[in-house]
């Protein structure tokens, strides 16, 4: 409307606005990329943490051996002796993405190492994710909201935590894929174009390739479709947006080896099929309604309803039978623990043991999304004025993701884009209202302030006009008229508006400061190199790499290293040694075996490890330097997981009056278990007292010897200790132990005394 009013001058302004928003987007991309480089600048260009090492190793294999070998890769260096079919159990999206990047760069004669490409994949994709957010929000609420949301997402700490340079994990590309899929769904919904529907299916395929979180999409979109149908918003656009996605998406998803038949077999996908059926029924009803007279239609409805009920009952009966036949009711453990947050802690300690599967605390919300948490409600309200298909989708998105993030801290990552979109909408709407109020009250002002607000308004105002062009068929007409009336009504006092804008800008500034701080301080530590500041300066703990390098250089290629599963990926990737269990926790029994060995006394542990051909045992010990996420702190999980499979390991045996302690009050079982011994062996030699700085107590048993293990390597700060299994004794001693050993060691004994032959006594 405004376009026709202003005529030619305004088209120029729109062109200018487009160029401006292009440059803003470019800057947002650069911001998203560069805010994630703190880790490289402060530390070095390394792969971070645990899972990224596995992804890095897989990428190396991919670039070396090609895609077919990768697909068929049977890895005999993990999960000894079971091995792992990597090609069939890994989400290949990230690896293929980075591999392709590397390949393209190499074909352009840019010789980057695979590691460099892997390190920088996450920042690149977070820029992409910011752009995708722009597109998605633009579809929902226009360009201004889009730009705002993109800027917020570019630096939201929750996403930064998973996508700093070096954090080479599935989530890095998956969030981009998630947002793109949502964008294309909304785009299809708004345009009704089959072209976008197909693109949507492809984006969904990319998401399935990248992350197990794709089930969120395939449940959220059906929910939205159902919502639209229930609220009487069914249209052919909805059908086009949904039906091709289910058909093509399911076909494509089942092409990914790790998903395969799960795409049609597991309960996570049932919702989409159910809604698929429903939308067809609804489409049929609408079609019949169109060709029949109202009277005939009523007749037909009764007919269809009665037949449909019978069919539905049959289908539901079959479904229930199918679901009931599977022990977990067709749900994977992780999904079940999402629906029932207490499920994991009750039945699957291995899922509950992972810190990122714990429910988050309120501070972590504040840490991860900061001021967005307060803007989200405003965004939700803005989405209801007016409620379109698209805005109802983002509302649904934020509601579900808030719930999921409340269950698992890891899913905060899914919440972050939703929160950014909502906050973007809220901020943009607020600016819209305030600047409009200012403009209405100062019609003749053409000072610097007005120009600035104009621009701001510009990008915002672009929205309704564009929408009008595209969505003429829709009832937006009504909405825009309504919004025109609202515009008149919603004029705030000038001073209030100016102050509110200032406050909002201040809020945004706080957010930026917080994000930069989070990126620089909180989330950029690679966790394989640790630093600490103390009164005498900066300390760097590089013990992990020291230990892995020792293993790589001092052990045989085929030697097996046992450790708690956290260190499995790093050991295979950095030390290139075979491990028993690793971070891909697919076999609970195997992990329980290692847990049992760690919680058993030395001899029993030796037998377990020996039966697994283990040569070396690696434990992480933080007691000397105060590194709190060490094996002693994780030990109760080992006991729990081990005891879940081998009932002779009982958790109460390790607890004194329900308290976990390692001091002199600890239980004998605790003081004699392998983990205690391997952690605290010779520890008393460091300070003479054996004071554990993590537990803040003196250890219970200070002087003991190892009979079946020998210490072969301990890193500089004692953070990693490596033990070797002693071979079985060459000889078996006779029975006459006590007197003989005394006789041999001190040449004095009861008997030599009686014989009076020893000249020394």
């Amino acid at each position, binding site marked *: 409307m405004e376009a026709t009013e202003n005529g030619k001058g305004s088209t120029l302004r729109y062109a200018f606005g487009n160029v401006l928003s292009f440059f803003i987007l470019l800057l947002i991309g650069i911001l998203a990329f560069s805010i994630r480089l703190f880790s490289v600048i402060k530390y070095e260009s390394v792969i971070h943490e645990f899972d990224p090492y596995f992804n890095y190793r897989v990428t190396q294999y991919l670039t070396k051996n090609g895609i077919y070998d990768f697909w068929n890769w049977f890895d005999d260096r993990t999960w000894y002796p079971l091995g792992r079919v990597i090609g069939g159990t890994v989400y290949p999206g990230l690896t293929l993405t980075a591999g392709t990047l590397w390949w393209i760069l190499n074909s352009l004669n840019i010789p980057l190492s695979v590691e460099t490409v892997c390190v920088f994949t996450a920042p690149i994709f977070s820029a992409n994710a910011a752009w995708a957010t722009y597109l998605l929000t633009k579809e929902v609420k226009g360009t201004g909201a889009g730009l705002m949301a993109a800027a917020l997402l570019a630096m939201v700490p929750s996403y930064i935590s998973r996508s700093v340079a070096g954090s080479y994990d599935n989530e890095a590309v998956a969030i981009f894929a998630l947002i793109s899929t949502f964008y294309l769904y909304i785009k299809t919904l708004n345009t009704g174009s089959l072209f976008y529907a197909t693109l949507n299916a492809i984006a969904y395929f990319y998401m399935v390739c990248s992350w197990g979180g794709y089930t969120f999409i395939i449940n959220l979109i059906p929910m939205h479709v159902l919502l639209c149908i229930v609220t009487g918003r069914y249209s052919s656009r909805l059908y086009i947006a949904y039906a091709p996605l289910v058909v093509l998406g399911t076909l494509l998803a089942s092409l990914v080896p790790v998903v395969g038949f799960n795409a049609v077999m597991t309960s996570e996908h049932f919702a989409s099929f159910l809604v698929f059926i429903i939308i067809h029924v609804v489409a049929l009803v609408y079609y019949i309604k169109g060709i029949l007279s109202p009277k005939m239609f009523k007749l037909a409805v009764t007919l269809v309803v009665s037949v449909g009920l019978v069919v539905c009952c049959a289908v539901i009966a079959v479904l229930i039978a199918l679901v009931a036949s599977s022990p977990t009711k067709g749900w994977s453990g992780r999904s079940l623990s999402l629906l029932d947050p207490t499920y994991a802690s009750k039945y699957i300690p291995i899922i509950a043991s992972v810190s990122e599967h714990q429910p988050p605390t309120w501070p972590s919300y504040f840490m991860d999304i900061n001021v967005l948490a307060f803007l989200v409600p405003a965004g939700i309200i803005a989405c209801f004025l007016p409620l379109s298909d698209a805005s109802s989708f983002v509302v649904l998105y934020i509601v579900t993701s808030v719930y999921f993030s409340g269950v698992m801290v890891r899913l905060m990552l899914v919440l972050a884009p939703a929160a950014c979109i909502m906050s973007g909408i809220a901020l943009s709407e607020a600016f819209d209202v305030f600047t409009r109020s200012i403009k209405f009250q100062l019609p003749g002002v053409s000072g610097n302030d007005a120009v600035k607000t104009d621009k701001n308004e510009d990008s915002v105002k672009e929205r309704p006009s564009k929408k009008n062009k595209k969505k003429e068929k829709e009832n937006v007409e009504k909405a825009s008229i309504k919004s025109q009336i609202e515009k008149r009504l919603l004029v705030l006092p000038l001073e209030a508006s100016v102050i509110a804008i200032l406050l909002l800008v201040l809020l945004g500034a706080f957010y930026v400061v917080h994000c930069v701080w989070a990126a620089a301080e909180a989330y950029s530590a690679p966790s394989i190199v640790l630093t600490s500041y103390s009164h005498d300066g900066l300390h760097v703990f590089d013990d992990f790499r020291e230990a892995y390098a020792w293993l790589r250089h001092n052990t045989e290629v085929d030697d097996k290293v046992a450790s708690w599963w956290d260190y499995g990926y790093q050991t295979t990737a950095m030390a290139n040694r075979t491990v028993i269990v690793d971070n891909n926790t697919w076999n609970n029994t195997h992990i329980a075996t290692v847990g049992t060995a760690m919680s058993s006394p030395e001899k029993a542990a030796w037998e377990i490890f020996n039966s697994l051909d283990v040569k070396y045992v690696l434990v992480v010990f933080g007691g000397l330097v105060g590194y709190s996420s060490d094996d002693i702190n994780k030990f109760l999980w080992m006991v729990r997981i081990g005891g879940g499979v081998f009932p002779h390991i009982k958790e109460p045996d390790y607890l004194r009056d329900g308290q976990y302690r390692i001091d002199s009050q600890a239980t004998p079982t605790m003081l004699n278990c392998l983990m205690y011994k391997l952690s605290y062996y010779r520890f008393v030699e460091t300070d003479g007292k054996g004071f554990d700085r993590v537990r803040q107590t003196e250890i219970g048993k200070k002087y003991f010897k190892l009979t079946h293990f020998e210490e072969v390597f301990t890193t500089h700060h004692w953070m990693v200790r490596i033990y070797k299994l002693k071979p079985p004794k*060459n000889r078996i001693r006779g*029975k006459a132990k006590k007197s003989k050993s005394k006789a041999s060691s001190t040449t004095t004994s009861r008997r030599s005394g009686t014989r009076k032959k020893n000249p020394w006594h």
Partner: protein
Amino acid sequence: MSRALLIFLTSIAFLAILCNSFSPENPTDRRILVLLDDLAIKSSHSLFFKSLQTRGFELDFKLGDDPKIALRRYGQYLYDSLILFSPTIERFGGSIDVSTVLDFVDSGHDLIIAADTSASDLIRAISTECGVDFDEDPAAMVIDHTSYAVSDTEGDRTLIASDDFIQSDVILGNRKIEAPVLFRGIGHSINPANSLVLKILSASPSAYSANPKSKLSNPPSLTGSAISLVSIVQARNNARILISGSLSMFSNRFSRSGVQKAGSSTKHAKSGNEQFLTELSKWVFHERGHLKAANVRHHKVGEADEPAMYRINDDLEYFVEIHEWSGTSWEPYVANDVQVQFYMMSPYVLKTLSTDQKGLYFTAFKVPDVYGVFQFKVEYQRLGYTSLSLSKQIPVRPFRHNEYERFITEAFPYYGASFSMMAGFFIFTVVYLYNK
């Protein structure tokens, strides 16, 4: 420069000659250190020593308390085995003590210990470490009132004539030991749970261990056939140890004297000692019962190269050569009970290997339908033989994506369904679009 090289090379050649000693390739011992209580034993036990020397061993006789004796110098062992004929010694001379002797054994060398009544703590300590417990009473001897040796000169009941040998050709030779073995000395017991110690010569059920000079006040601690007179130990590293409770068993006098077991009418002109000890020393010094496995190979049926990885359901062949050391050369080992396991935490395949009688053992089997890291395991432990324990790791992978059948018969209805649907859709489209 070249001269130095020449000297170096010749010295290496000499070294090679000097080093003609125990090695995995040539497992018979060559240099033996004999530690004696006094040098008279050298002559009084000369029959035993001579039998060793005629078989090519170099014996080095030293007094047990000789301050210059040493087992190793500059990290090299000077001897391949040790004979301790010094039952009363309290402390060795030189650098030898209990732990050096045990280290000597633990590095794969052999040991013969002859104890006697009033054996010293040192000898007892070494024996205990090897798994043999001598009677704690220092004055005790093995006494047997039924199977003693009837003799003109020595009429007491401590001279045992025992013929309760272990039934093993590989330890005591093919030829049956005809006469009983004369024994006078201390008895010992072994822990039945100890799988490394074997009783070679046991006392009769009527024997007991006590001080013959004093009255028996309380029941003897060792009685009956639990008493072992001579035992052998084969350590896990295949070092072999012979422990005897009697030094005089090795003596010329016992070897030469005739023997008549009490209550038996047969009188043997010559005791079994010489034959028994010769055969036993052959075993101890690895002239018999030493096995070696070589050339472990495996490959798919019809191929020659060893793959790095098998696929499930592959057919494979497994070969291993097993030889036995005869004292001078490696001879094919012939047996029908060698088994191979295809092992991943538990054996998935257990097959007895067939042999071609020339030392080559082989079998063929199908890889089980399970993927993982398997091992070919041969665990061959037979009485008297060195233990063979071979394991070779081999991963087994699942099918590759293109190794499945492309079309399966059972699925033809589905193929038919999809193609008919495609055709039907095409026809429907044509009809719908152009039929108006």
